[in-house]
């Protein structure tokens, strides 16, 4: 196990809050007119676990994180004038000074706060972005041998005699790491395998296996896994949720209506140029950079709206997306827009912007903004599907009846509805054991077996239908608002058969009848077998030994 300084911290572990060091580049004072950096530092330090300071020319000082040791900080946030330069060197310097590089978050204040209409607004927006980054980096699990891989690049991309004998600069890339205890691949779940664009995930001997060499850390599997069994350094669901919660929920910072802007590494420069060349009139776009926008599920979009965002935009790479996430992203946005159509103006608050020039991006982002939303969500931001979508749908449709509360069948609906043919079901509970989200649960009350279905937890993965030996389970990919409001319902109920010897309940009556029917069709000694079927397992053994309870 790795040294505790950088080992992933188990969830739920109690202890003092980790200290975060915030460094702001002194050149921001000239990049953004009259930006009060000292005031921002003082404001950030109202939280006892934050230490903030201004560093001259931070953007060109990868080793400036040396200050982390002085304040015993295990995380850092860098407020920079532009996109992070020289990432590999910064990674090495962070490590050298005792920081896990995946617990260091850069924040491009220079581009995103540059053209704010007034310096007071720039200060407020900077505070918001830094607070979001701090909230996210606090929950960063850090790296481990399983969650990073070495990247060696030949200097100048050339093969040479020098390359034979010297090591190229070393950097590390994040890869997906598996928490085996949370994974239910052994029960048949393979949701993550299907979404991986590089086939880095596979089922080997019934268990999930990760091929580090193939993983490109796009994060699609992170969003697909309902058990949070997969982790990506620097990009976990918990971090993203914390960052969004901070961006949307913070009360003492006023920037007016907020928009959440999701973009990926590939579009970082374009989005930064756009931000630099536009004004934030009407809507303050708060950027969230992700490994790939394929991570953004419908639930992410709806959660943002439910927690007060006036608009959500996704900047995609279009058909040229190297990770082939365009179709998924397009489908999710279409689903959200269709879901929100009954609510005036809300559908337009979800925007998908394809590859474009910075001028087109500006036009797309700064189209007239919808009216500010009053947040009404109950509870924290959650990005784990299907709860993320279900909770957001209930919030957004609360108080709306009739057509607006109708069902929405859609190929990209993250939610589904399960139906069981109760007359043919034998109560074997295979569906309950297989369900990866516990949408299907069973309960035995005295001698009655009940199988219940909770639509808030159903991913429409159809694993229950696949494993049903009687083929009586049907799954529909549909967002049924009425079902969500109603909550869990029983789908199957049956009494237990009682042993004809001892009277104990031992199996669902329907299962006994089904087995008897199958036996009678095929076996020669069907009568003898049927009589055994009407006994509990203990009495069957005693019966086969020619003994009864009296013999004991």
């Amino acid at each position, binding site marked *: 196990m790795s040294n505790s*300084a950088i080992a992933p911290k188990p969830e739920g572990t109690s202890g003092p809050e980790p200290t975060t060091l915030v460094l702001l580049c002194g050149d921001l004072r000239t990049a953004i007119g009259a930006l009060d950096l000292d005031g921002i530092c003082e404001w950030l330090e109202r939280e006892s676990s934050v230490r903030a300071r201004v560093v001259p*020319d931070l953007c*060109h000082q990868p*080793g400036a994180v040396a200050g982390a040791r002085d304040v015993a900080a295990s995380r850092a946030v860098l407020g920079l004038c532009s996109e992070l330069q*020289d990432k590999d060197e910064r990674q090495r310097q962070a490590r050298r000074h*005792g920081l896990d590089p995946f617990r260091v978050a850069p924040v491009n204040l220079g581009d995103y706060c540059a053209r704010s209409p007034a310096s007071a607004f720039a200060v407020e927006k900077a505070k918001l972005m830094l607070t979001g980054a701090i909230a996210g980096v606090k929950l960063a699990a850090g790296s481990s041998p399983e969650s990073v891989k070495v990247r060696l690049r030949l200097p100048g991309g050339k*093969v*040479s005699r020098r390359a*034979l004998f*010297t090591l190229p600069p070393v950097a590390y890339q994040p890869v997906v790491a598996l928490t085996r205890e949370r994974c239910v691949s052994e029960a048949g779940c393979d949701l993550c395998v299907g979404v991986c664009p590089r086939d880095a995930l596979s089922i080997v001997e019934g268990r999930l296996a990760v091929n580090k060499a193939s993983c490109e850390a796009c994060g699609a599997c992170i969003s697909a896994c309902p058990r949070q069994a997969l982790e990506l350094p620097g990009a976990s669901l918990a971090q993203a949720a914390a960052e969004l919660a901070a961006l949307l929920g913070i009360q003492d910072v006023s920037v007016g209506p907020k928009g959440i802007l999701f973009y990926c590494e590939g579009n970082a420069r374009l989005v930064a140029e756009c931000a630099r060349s536009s004004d934030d009139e009407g809507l303050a776009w708060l950027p969230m950079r992700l490994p790939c926008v394929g991570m953004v599920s419908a639930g992410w979009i709806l959660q943002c709206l439910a927690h007060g965002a006036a608009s959500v935009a996704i900047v995609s790479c279009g058909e040229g997306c190297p990770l082939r996430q365009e179709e998924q992203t397009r489908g999710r946005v279409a689903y959200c827009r269709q879901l929100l159509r009954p609510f005036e103006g809300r559908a337009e608050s979800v925007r998908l912007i394809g590859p474009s020039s910075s001028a087109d991006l500006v036009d797309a982002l700064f189209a007239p903004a919808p009216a500010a939303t009053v947040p009404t969500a109950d509870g924290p931001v959650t990005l784990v599907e299907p709860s993320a979508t279900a909770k957001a749908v209930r919030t957004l449709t609360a108080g709306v009846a009739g057509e607006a509360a109708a069902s929405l069948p859609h190929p990209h609906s993250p939610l589904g509805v399960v139906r069981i043919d109760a007359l043919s079901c034998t109560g074997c509970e295979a569906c309950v054991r297989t369900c990866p989200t516990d949408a299907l649960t069973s309960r035995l009350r005295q001698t009655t077996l009940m199988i219940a279905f909770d639509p808030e937890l159903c991913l429409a993965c159809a694993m229950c239908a696949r494993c049903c030996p009687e083929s009586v389970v049907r799954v529909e990919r549909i967002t049924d608002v009425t079902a969500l409001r109603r909550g869990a319902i029983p789908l199957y109920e049956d009494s237990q058969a009682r042993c004809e010897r001892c009277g104990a309940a031992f199996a669902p009556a329907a299962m006994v009848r089904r087995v008897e029917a199958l036996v009678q069709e095929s076996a020669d000694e069907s009568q003898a077998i049927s009589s055994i079927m009407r006994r509990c397992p203990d009495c069957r053994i005693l019966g086969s030994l020619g003994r009864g309870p009296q013999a004991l």
Partner: protein
Amino acid sequence: MPVEHSGAGGRPPDAARLSDRLLPLAGLAGVREAVYRSISEALLYPSDDRIAALRNAKNGLAAQSDTAAQFAFYEDWRSLLSTLGTLDGARTGELQGQYIRLFQAAPGGVPCPPYESFYVDDGRLPTGWVLALVEGEFLLAGVAISPEVHEQPDHIAMELEFLAILCGQESAAWEDGDPVQARKALHTERRFLSRHLCSWLPSFAERVSVADTTGFYNAISAAGDAFVRYDADLVSALYELALEVASADADIDEIS
């Protein structure tokens, strides 16, 4: 590398750029050899001589910190140095008692058997099969356990020492300008790490973390476990690089 930035103060970049220091592969293999040897030594029965040797080794490792800082195992490296720094002659008795209790004999059974067979041999293979496989790897590399050392080939210290020897062979090959031999050593390292050490060291380290009370063996095995797993990844990458370099048409540069 100039960085265009509006409003920049125009100061030069950080002078101590680690990226500017190309690292000789021979040197890297030498550093890895020293780490494997130190951890191996620390997991043998402690004696005054051994403890003195480990303190010297610690000073040697500390001198390589700039090299180690480039790698993801750097924090574990620092932990190892810090642990070795706590050693002194006064602790020999205490550590001997801990060693026996953890790895050799204890009421109720040995809590942390330091043998691969214990963790890997699930009874489906003939008895001693794991031992034979490990010894076979030693023989293929031209290595044998000295008769003066009374430990089985699959003892943790023997396997770590074997890796140290392979790293030494690799380093010598790079020094001699023989990339073919170096690749061979990397291949053997990669194979041994994936088939043997990495398959059981995490379980061993976990047992030690539960059973150890002084912290010394817990710290050593934790640092060793992390280092081995990071190193396995690095060795794979180095081996792939060596293959790429060997198979491409090389431009011969003047070596300055």
